[in-house]
Structure formats: structure tokens, C-alpha cells
């Protein structure tokens, strides 16, 4: 589906991947409808989208409210006439040992990350079926394939969302709705404010686990996905490696992930008070795409490093062969 | 695949709406309606079919019913739009001076043929293959099929879906399938376009409205369940079955002796023959917009048109120099207007083969001018349901009322009403009658006005 002139609804559009996706779609000529809890953040994103070249509409809602999500879809159609793409991106997480996290917070994460996506799909699909065409993008995560400790509800939710996409695809196919596509995106660790705002009961400050990728890269993948819808897309070589590992040596992958998270996802030397983060109240401020984890810089460094390695290796080979 | 090919797969071949469109469509193309336009028409084959043992024949009716139905997982394919495509595809020519729209009726089929008018039936039957319910347990049938009935209604907002359950005359079919009758309430773009493009400027839309209602129960939006139908058993007897039904159920080896239907919550147009008035405003609006005349032919019972149409044919034949002394009584969907006209025979339509139809024919023959020849053909529905009139009664009626010859034709008397060859035999039986006449010049609507104006008989109908 052409992104230009499409109407794209993005939940979780106030920060991170959602925000980057909204901006990327606007830059490609789409009309974007932005949904999240923070009205000022959305207004800022809307302004940025219009500068980038698209029309934008900001609709502050909480995706756990099914009626509000239906109203969001209605407003999108009233303003722009149709819904071509719906990107479910709004998500929250918590770092906590399993017995420590309050149960309502556990439920809240499932509510936002799973039911929020369900509400979005239920709102968008009737319009897409009527139109005969549409793309539903569910942003999942590589943790759906290789889950992590201390983030049980989040990992469960991302796996659930992957399965939701699959069930929907099958049902749509049986119903003969050939033009309506459901896609899953599985990014690895992304440089977003996600980690600053999480609930945390581990006593240790959370950080983005390297390698960190930029949110813009995920956004580019999503835009490509809209153009050529595919079932599941992994973003970046790290995600692809993990996926491969999970299929070939799942036990080993699990053990390696456990130790990685313990060493690299939580600071070893920085403590953090217990907090419920942005689970029930959105974080203050107007949001941003990047979380300051230097995703772009890290990517660039990785590229430089691997290019250097290649060149060094090539030079070694050349010497060997007397070139 | 085109809409009409898709629809052809799930439309039921013995349905009155489907046969209306097939018969009139073929008539307008100069073809007859042998074998209901889908099956073979051959006396030897018919004899073979009728000679099979009773149990096999009975099973055959049941199997045919099961095969006609579509499985539950394909119900989502039912599309009222495709059905409208199919209906309009039966009439490729035009422009026509008149188009008939509305509830199906065999008498109106002959009328449409006389007017050379396409007939767009409001109601069509779709059968759903299901083997899980028992014909004598209507409550269970209603609840088991309710999600499916609702699904069809939900996916087709222009129609109402009537789930009709009749363990009397439809019994063999009911063993393998459920009847869903789709009634158009909104004209829809396909039929609208047909009327706008293929009806002559200043032409007439003739709306056939049968006001027969039946008690029914709502199971969803535009989705209803109806227990029983027009036939040998009255509406009251279906809902409060007595000794006659107990005997019938015993004969059919049913585990029950009584029917316990779900409590009805309203009266709605009868599923097969009733007209749903929700369609009328669209037709009125279209007629006003396009400058067409809208005429309404309103009757309470579908059979009430039969004597009017018979006398009208007599009058029309007389004006066109055709003989008027031969009557051809045709039952249910074994109608063939081409042959009736070719034979110079006045058509009398019997809704079915049961006591009410018998009485209607008797009454008609009692007060009209005598016919020299009377021929009666009877449909076989596959069992002795309550009220079926045996062949010899029909023969006696025909013989006593006719001056020269009165007989039952095209029926295997021993096999009846389990005559599996019935549909293959009726047209050869018609064709066997001499002589042939050229088809008369068409009737026009003004002539109907004139006929009703000059006729002294009062017919139980309203012509507006």
C-alpha cells in the first residue's frame, strides 16, 4: 500500500517507536492520527508531523478504554475519511521480581499491552474490511521469541500480540478479506524513553540493553512494511540472531538472555527506588523519540567497528595471498 | 468468480423464488421450464426413479435435500448482492414494458409471462446443510441455527432472514438441512440499476404483494424463526398440535407425539410467500424518480391470484383468437408458462397438492364457465404429510368438472407423493397434449385494467 495519501493511526505516538513512526509516515506524505495519553506531547508531535509534510490529528486517549479507542477510530474517519493503516504501539513495562510486583500493576501491563492492541484491532478492522484494504501493524518485540526475566508481563504480552496477529490473519483469510493485512514487528532493544519511565521493583536502575538500535530504524521498517506487508519482520541483525538461536538452541538462548539481562539491562552499581513508573499516570513532559541511549551513535559505532574488522580481515587475506 | 455463479451454488433448485426467475427468464428467451430448468426431463428416467423402492425414494428426497444445502463453514459466502446479480442475469434482454417485483406466486409467473415482463422475486431460499437437529424439535433447531441466521443477517444488511422449520410437508428435506429464506427489504443497487436501465421510459412496475403473515420469533436483528408454513396443516395446528399430528408423527416413527415450538413474539410476513412491505418505499421512490408507474396487486393468500389469472388468460386468449376451453392446473414450482400458452391452455396454479389447494380449484371450477378439457399435474414432496390429497380425488374433480376430458397427467399414481420422477415427467406430459398454437401477442397492463373493469366476478384481491 502506498504510504503517500494513506491515513495512518498510531497509538503510543507521544514517544519512542510510535513517535518515530508517526513522523516517518508524515514525511512520506501520509495523514497521521496520533494517540497517547499525553495531550501536550501529542500536540508537539502533530506540529512536527505537519512540518515534515503530512496532515496530523492528535487524539489523547488511554488504550485500555475500549470505547475511547472506538471513538478514536471514528474521529479518524470523520477527519480523514478512511483508515488505511493502524499501528498498535502503545506499551508499558515493569522490571520486578515475580513475587514483588503488585498484582494490579501486573494486570495493568497486560491490559495496556494486550487489551490495548485488541481494542485497536477491533476498532480498525471493521473499517478496513469495509474498505477492502488495510494494514494492521502490531509492534511486538524480540522478547516474544526469547523472553526476559523480571519483565514477565511485558514478555507475555509481546508473545500474546504475536499470536494475536497470527489468529487475525487466519480469520481474515477465511472470511475472504484478502486486502486486509496484519503484520508483526519484532524490534530488539530500541533507544527510547521506555526504560526511563518503567515501573521498577528490582532496586536497580534500568537501562537499554546493548546493542541498542534507533527508533528511526524501526520506524523505517514499519514504513517499508506498510508498503509491502509481511507476516513478521525482525529489525536488525541482533533480533535475527536471537530468533535463529531461539529456534536452533532454545535452552541456550534462554540461559544467555537471563545472564545478559542481569548484567546489561539493569545497572550493577546504580540503585533505584521502587516505583510504578508510567503504568497509571503518564510521565511528565512532551516526550521524545530517543531515550538518550545513543541508538544512532551505537549503530554508527557498530558499523564502523564491523567495517574496520572487514577491512582488517580483507587486508590480512590479501597479504596472505600476496596481493 | 462472478456474483451470479457464486449465488448459483447455494440457491436451492426447488425454491419458489428461484423457479420464478428461472421460468420467466427462460420464457423470455423462448425456452421452457422443463425439469425446473436444471434437471433432466425424460419419461423413461422418471419411470426409473419412481420405480425404486419406497425406502430408497424417501431416502433420495432426503439426500437431495442434504446435497442442496451448503455446509455451515460456507455460510459466510451467502451474499444478497450475488443473489441480485443472479436474478438480473436471468433476464439479459430489454428494455421491457413491464417488470414484476415482489412475493413469489405461480399465478403471477403466468401473468408475468403474458406481459413479457421479468419477475424479480423478493424472497429466495438458501439451504444450510445440518444434520444435528431433529425435525420435531423446533426449539432446539431455532437455537442451534440462531448464530448462523444472525450471521447471514449481519453480513447482508439489505435482507431479513427467516429461518423456516416445517416438519410436515418439508420433512424429508428438513432431515438434512435448514431453510433460510432471504427477503429483500432494501432494493439495492443491482435491482435499482436493472429497473433504471431495462424498463422502458414510462414503463410499469407491477408489485405483487401477498399480505399473509405468520407468527414468528425474533432471534436477532432482521433474523426470525418461523415454525410451520402454508400447507395442509393450519397455523394453529402447528402451534397447538392435536390428534391428527400425533398420528402423523407416529406414522413417521418420530420419538415425539407433539410439537413444542418456541413462543412466538410477533406476526411477520410468511417466510416463503409473504411480502415484506419494507421494500415498497424504495420502489415508490424509484418509480417517482424515473417516471414509471407503480401498480400493486395485493392478495391475502398466494393462491388467491389463481382464479383471477386463469380468467384473465381466458379473456386474453379470446381476444387473441386462441381457444379457451382447456385448463392446465400446475402445482408448486412445476409451472411452465411457455407450454401453457403453446397448448392454448388456461393456467391454474395450485400452491401445493393439499386440501386448501384442492378446495381452491374446486371452488374455481364451481363458479366459472365449464372447460372442455381439464388437466392436473401434481408436485411430489416426498411423503404423505397431513392434508395431501390423493390422486384419485383430483382425477374425479377434473373428470366431473370437464365437459369432454378431465385427467391427472405426469404423475406416477403408485409412487405419489413419493414420486421421485415428478420433476422429470411434467413437461413431457404437457408436451404430449395436442395441438400447438402460436404464442399470443403480449398482454399489457391497460388490458388488466379493462378486464377487471368489465368482469362481473369479484376476485379476492386489490388492484391499485
Amino acid at each position, binding site marked *: 500500500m502506498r504510504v503517500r*495519501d494513506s*491515513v495512518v493511526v498510531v497509538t503510543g505516538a507521544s514517544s519512542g517507536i510510535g513517535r518515530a513512526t508517526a513522523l516517518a509516515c508524515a514525511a512520506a506524505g501520509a*495523514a497521521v492520527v496520533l494517540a497517547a495519553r499525553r495531550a501536550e506531547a501529542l500536540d508537539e508531535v502533530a506540529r512536527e508531523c505537519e512540518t515534515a509534510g503530512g*496532515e496530523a490529528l492528535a487524539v489523547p486517549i488511554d488504550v485500555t478504554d475500549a470505547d475511547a479507542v472506538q471513538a478514536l477510530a471514528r474521529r479518524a*474517519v*470523520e*477527519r*480523514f*475519511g*478512511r483508515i*488505511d493503516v493502524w499501528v498498535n504501539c502503545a506499551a508499558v513495562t515493569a522490571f520486578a521480581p515475580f513475587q514483588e510486583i503488585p498484582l494490579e500493576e501486573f494486570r495493568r501491563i497486560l491490559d495496556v499491552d494486550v487489551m490495548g492492541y485488541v481494542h485497536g484491532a477491533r476498532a480498525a478492522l471493521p473499517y478496513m474490511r*469495509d*474498505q*477492502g*484494504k488495510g494494514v494492521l501493524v502490531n509492534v511486538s518485540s524480540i522478547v516474544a521469541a526469547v523472553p526476559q526475566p523480571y519483565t514477565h508481563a511485558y514478555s507475555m504480552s509481546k508473545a500474546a500480540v504475536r499470536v494475536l496477529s497470527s489468529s487475525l490473519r487466519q480469520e481474515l483469510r477465511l472470511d475472504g478479506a484478502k*486486502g486486509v493485512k496484519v503484520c508483526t514487528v519484532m524490534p530488539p532493544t530500541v533507544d527510547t524513553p521506555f526504560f526511563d519511565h518503567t515501573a521498577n521493583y528490582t532496586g536497580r536502575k534500568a537501562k537499554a540493553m546493548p546493542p541498542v538500535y534507533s527508533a528511526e530504524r524501526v520506524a523505517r521498517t514499519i514504513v517499508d512494511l506498510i508498503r509491502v506487508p509481511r507476516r513478521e519482520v525482525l529489525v536488525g541483525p541482533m533480533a535475527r540472531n536471537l530468533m535463529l538461536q531461539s529456534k536452533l538452541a532454545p535452552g541456550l538462548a534462554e540461559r544467555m538472555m537471563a545472564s545478559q539481562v542481569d548484567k546489561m539491562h539493569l545497572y550493577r552499581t546504580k540503585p533505584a527506588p521502587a516505583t510504578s513508573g508510567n503504568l497509571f499516570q503518564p510521565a511528565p513532559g512532551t516526550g521524545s523519540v530517543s531515550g538518550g541511549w545513543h541508538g544512532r551513535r551505537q549503530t554508527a559505532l557498530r558499523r564502523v567497528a564491523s567495517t574496520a574488522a572487514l577491512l582488517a580481515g580483507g587486508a590480512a587475506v590479501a597479504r596472505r595471498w600476496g596481493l | 468468480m462472478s456474483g451470479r455463479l457464486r449465488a448459483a451454488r447455494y440457491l436451492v433448485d426447488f425454491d419458489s423464488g428461484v423457479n420464478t426467475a428461472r421460468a420467466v427468464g427462460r420464457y423470455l428467451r423462448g425456452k421452457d421450464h422443463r425439469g425446473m430448468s436444471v434437471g433432466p426431463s425424460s419419461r423413461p428416467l422418471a419411470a426409473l426413479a419412481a420405480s425404486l423402492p419406497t425406502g430408497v425414494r424417501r431416502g433420495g428426497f432426503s439426500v437431495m435435500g442434504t446435497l442442496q444445502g451448503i455446509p455451515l463453514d460456507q455460510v459466510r459466502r451467502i451474499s444478497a448482492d450475488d443473489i441480485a446479480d443472479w436474478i438480473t442475469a436471468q433476464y439479459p434482454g430489454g428494455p421491457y414494458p413491464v417488470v414484476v417485483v415482489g412475493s413469489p406466486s405461480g399465478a403471477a409467473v403466468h401473468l408475468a409471462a403474458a406481459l413479457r415482463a421479468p419477475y424479480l422475486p423478493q424472497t429466495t431460499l438458501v439451504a444450510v446443510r445440518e444434520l444435528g437437529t431433529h425435525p420435531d424439535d423446533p426449539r432446539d433447531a431455532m437455537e442451534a441455527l440462531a448464530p448462523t441466521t444472525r450471521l447471514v443477517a449481519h453480513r447482508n444488511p439489505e435482507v431479513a432472514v427467516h429461518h423456516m422449520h416445517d416438519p410436515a410437508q418439508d420433512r424429508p428435506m428438513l432431515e438434512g438441512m435448514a431453510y433460510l429464506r432471504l427477503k429483500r427489504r432494501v432494493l439495492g*443497487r443491482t435491482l*435499482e*440499476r436493472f429497473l*433504471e*436501465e431495462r424498463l422502458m*421510459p414510462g414503463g410499469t412496475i407491477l408489485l405483487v404483494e401477498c399480505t399473509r403473515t405468520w407468527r414468528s420469533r425474533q432471534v436477532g436483528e432482521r433474523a426470525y424463526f418461523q415454525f410451520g408454513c402454508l400447507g395442509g396443516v393450519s397455523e394453529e395446528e402447528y402451534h397447538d398440535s392435536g390428534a391428527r399430528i400425533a398420528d402423523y408423527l407416529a406414522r413417521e416413527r418420530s420419538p415425539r407425539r407433539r410439537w413444542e415450538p418456541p413462543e412466538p413474539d410477533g406476526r411477520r410476513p410468511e417466510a416463503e410467500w409473504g411480502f415484506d412491505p419494507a421494500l415498497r418505499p424504495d420502489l415508490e421512490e424509484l418509480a417517482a*424518480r*424515473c417516471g414509471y408507474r407503480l401498480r400493486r396487486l395485493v392478495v391475502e393468500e398466494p393462491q388467491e391470484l389463481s382464479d383471477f389469472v386463469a380468467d384473465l388468460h381466458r379473456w386474453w386468449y379470446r381476444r387473441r383468437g386462441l381457444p379457451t376451453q382447456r385448463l392446465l392446473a400446475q402445482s408448486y414450482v412445476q409451472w411452465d408458462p411457455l407450454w401453457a400458452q403453446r397448448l392454448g391452455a388456461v393456467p391454474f396454479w395450485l400452491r401445493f397438492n393439499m386440501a386448501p389447494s384442492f378446495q381452491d380449484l374446486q371452488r374455481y371450477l364451481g363458479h366459472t364457465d365449464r372447460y372442455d378439457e381439464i388437466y392436473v399435474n401434481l408436485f411430489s414432496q416426498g411423503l404423505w404429510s397431513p392434508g395431501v390429497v390423493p390422486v384419485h380425488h383430483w382425477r374425479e374433480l377434473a373428470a366431473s368438472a370437464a365437459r369432454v376430458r378431465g385427467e391427472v397427467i405426469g404423475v406416477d399414481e403408485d409412487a405419489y407423493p413419493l414420486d421421485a420422477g415428478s420433476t422429470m415427467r411434467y413437461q413431457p406430459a404437457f408436451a404430449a397434449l395436442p395441438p400447438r398454437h402460436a404464442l399470443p401477442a403480449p398482454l399489457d397492463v391497460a388490458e388488466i385494467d379493462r378486464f377487471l373493469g368489465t368482469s362481473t366476478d369479484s376476485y379476492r384481491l386489490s388492484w391499485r
Partner: protein
Amino acid sequence: MGPLTRWDTHGFTAAAGTRVHAALLGNADAPTVVCVHGLGCSHRYFLPLARALRRDARVVAPDLPGFGRTRGPSRALDIRGLSQALADWLRATARAGAVVVANSTGCQVAVDMALHSPELLGPLVLVGPTVDRRARTLPQQVGRLIADSPWERPTLGPVLLRDWAACGARRYAATFAYMLTDPIERKLPHVPVPTVVVRGARDPVVPRAWAEEVTRTLPDGRLAEVPGVGHTVNWSAPERLARLVRPLLAGEHT
């Protein structure tokens, strides 16, 4: 400003169950001219006409659902569907009563509005009204379109190709079928506004006899012929067409 002038704006409106794109060019204070494109075309081939009229009018060329940059339903719309979409868009953009310049199948769409929304029509210009009721078959129309091509400017080719790619073969074929059976001659007597029927003198799709019949059947019709051009007068002779449109600008009512 000159022959390289592009459209001023590309506007979108939520209407007709979708997001309708329209291209705009011209003097914002001037009377509006709405251009209705033909089968498989879009706003693009009205650019020359828009340029010619830009000082005297605000030219707006919407893309009907399924064509140009307006997404359409999966089932192609018939003439009634397209005219209802156009009517919905005219209401949503408050352009009732504007002068309407239609080409080819667009004439059928505009005339059909007289049956359900006559109040939306302003003075009408029917450029090459289809379909000649004596040539209502696919082979005849295709033959005529081929016979027309020598009389069109070659620059029209790439524009049309792009538009055909946008609408796709299936929608094109389905809309063609609806176009052929649409009885325009029955609707013409209902057109409540003064109408100019424009015909390219070399147009085989709309022979002179048919154009004259259309003009006669209209309650207030007048025929104008443009010598030396074929069916797509708006592309091949925009200046001369503009000259025919300008006098109507004073007569539009809102």
C-alpha cells in the same frame, strides 16, 4: 507563471466514505469551476484548462473514488455511485452551484446528479458526452477510442498511463461496463441548469449527430464545436475551451 505552472494546492476532504483528493489552481476570490474527469482519468489532465482559467476562476479538480489519488472501494462504483460521491464531496466542500466542466464519462456522472441532487448543479459544460446510444457496445467504443488517438496530443499518453496504473485494470473494466449501460439520454431532460455541449470536431466517440441529440434533449442546451481536435478537448484545446467556460462564470449561483 506560464506553461510550467503547477497546481497551487492538493487538498483532501473526508467525503464519500473515503478521503477525496482535489487539485486546485487559480484566483481564490474568483468563482469556482469544478472539473469532473472521465473513465480512468484524474485531475491531471485538467491542468492545461486550469492554467487557462487561472485568472478568472478557482479551478478545482477532484479525483473520484478509485481514480487518481482518491482511494476507492474494492467494488467499482457505478455511475450512480460516482455521482453520489461527487455530490457528497460538493456538499462537504460547500461548492454547490459551482460551474461544472465534465469530460467523457464525467458528463454521465454530472448529469446523473440531476436525478438525486439537482440543487448542487451550477452551469454545466459537457465536453464529449458519452455514450452515444447508438454505439452501446464494447467493440464500438474501443474502436472509436482508437480512432480518436491520432487527434489527441501525444503528451496525453503518459498522463493517461499513469492514471490507468492508479485505478487498475479491474476497476477500469467494471466502470466501463457500467458506463456502457447507463441511459444518459433519459436523464438529460432533468438537468435544471443551462448547459453547453462541447464537441471536438474530429471526435469519433461523440459524433455530431449524437452531440446534437444531447443538446436537443437538454432543456437548456447549446452546442459548441471546436475544430481540429478529438475527444479530450480539455487537453488538446484548453484555451478555446476556457473561452467557452468564461461566460458561464458570471452565471454561477451559490
